[in-house]
């Protein structure tokens, strides 16, 4: 077992050592001159304003989820298409059921306004 995984553990050891060396080096060797300006919360150069607890509407995540769903659908369709002849009618109806389920989900999202960016 060690012969197989040995190089991997060695690699991990090297990575951890190197990373901790950088961190320790930066914190012990580096010069520190804290000024009030440096310790302030940093927001792209300008003074930060407003509260921290905001409710944000994350538009892109619905689109991203839909994208993933249809991506996975494609992943399933390719092998199915290659074996289309051998799978026969059972395969055809299984895939139809799968697609119908996904289309129902899409219709639902559409109707509920998940695809509208401006709202």
């Amino acid at each position, binding site marked *: 077992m060690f012969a197989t995984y040995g190089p991997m553990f060695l690699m991990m050891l090297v990575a951890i050592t190197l990373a901790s060396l950088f961190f320790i080096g930066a914190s012990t060797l580096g010069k520190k001159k804290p000024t009030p300006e440096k310790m302030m919360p940093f927001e792209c150069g300008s003074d930060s304003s407003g509260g921290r607890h905001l409710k944000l509407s994350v538009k892109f995540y619905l689109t991203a989820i839909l994208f993933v769903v249809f991506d996975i659908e494609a992943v399933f369709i390719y092998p199915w298409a290659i074996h289309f002849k051998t799978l026969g009618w059972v395969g055809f109806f299984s895939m139809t059921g799968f697609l119908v*389920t996904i289309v*129902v989900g899409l*219709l*639902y999202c559409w*109707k*509920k306004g998940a695809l509208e960016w401006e709202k």
Partner: protein
Amino acid sequence: MLLQAFAISPLLMVGIGAMLLMMAEAFSKVRGGLALGAAAVCFAGVACAAGVWMYGVETIPGIDAFSPWLRVDRFSLFFDALLCLGAGLSCLMAGGYLPEHNLDRGEFYSLLLLSTFGAMILSAAGDVLTLFLGLETMSLGVYCLAAFRRASARSSEGALKYFLLGSFAAALLLYGFALLYGVTGHTDLQGIGDAMAKGNIRNPMAIMGLVLILVGLAFKVSAVPFHMWTPDAYEGAPTPATNFMAVAVKGAAFAMMLRVLLTAFGDPRSASWASGWPPALAWIAVITMTVANLVAGRQESVKRMLAYSSVAHAGYILVGMVATMHSATQASAGVLFYLLTYTVSTAGAFGALILCGRRGAEAVTYEDLAGIGRRHPAAALPFAFFLLSLAGVPPTAGFFGKWFVFRSAMEGGFYWLTIIAFINSVIGAYYYLRVLVFMYMREPAAGAPVATPMRSGYVTAALILSAVLVIALGLTPTKSLSVVFQAAAIFGG
């Protein structure tokens, strides 16, 4: 082909029904009928399961086409009916509760039905992959249901706890399955069982896998010490969703537990006191019953008390699970019967709790219920009745549920376990009766907020249905006993 579709008609009914309901909710402007539609889908699922049962599922040619992924047998049909019944009662309660508390959003019903679908897959799964799919389908829906009151911090807190611990438990379960696959080379439960019987029982990796699976299962049935999420999630969720979690999710989790332990670890050496899972399960049962009952007695909120009571009931059911090591069929029949009586009694209790409150004055604490027996006897009477059934007072269903589980434990020779379980059900009676004391013998303090019962045909219908079942199971248990024995017969021996 058509007969095979008939055999899985309960699943098809709930799955297609959920999608149709989703479409109806998205495209129609009518709001009212969703609860009725969802309840109709669930009860149609019960009817389909009963139809396949009576036709004789063994006689359907090609029924093995789905196995080992999906085992369509009397066991899974029993659970199809039980889970659909629990879901249907939750839908009826939601029809009254959601509009009353201004939560009436249609997603509730499709989420609940899809979750039921996952639960049914879970109870029929004969392969760890389908089992995991069913588990996740069920859990994802329930996480959303638990967080349904978006504006309430308590609801979000409970749902987040449930989600994190639930995912954690699912990961442990999956890790256990992966280790078993590594040892046996099988993902189907029967194959794992055969490979285990061939002498893998001493393999440390297999033991590790079994332990991880036991932890995952104990999380899902909310056994102590893996119950931390239960009171918060149950209290934060809207009451119909709480009922669904207590009834259907727990039922499906026990179905999974029975199938996994008796199929994959059912060989005489895994299922023995000396070298298997029964002692671990017995101690979990003892801790679960004792801790849950002691903590339940100290609660101020009735809903939280009912959450701990459902943990305690999981403990009683685990006593029956331990007894399966001696007589798989008889003890698991006891477990199934207990689940049936627990389902109808718990659904009734949550329904009655819903009936006791209205908008802005939801009945939550014992104080809220003070004196309601005199002011509104029609709301207090069903509550008292279902609590007596939960406490196990004859001639209600709850009494026979406990009777059969305890008897199978006695026959298995677990006298000490039975005595502990008996003492615990006596402790349990204290907090159930405390509700009755508050309802009938106390008056609210001057100026204290009092609960006013709501009026709803939906909730009343759910209560009548549960009450009829509680009485029927209590007075004539013979018929349903023969049903559970046929369902448990798949475990043979």
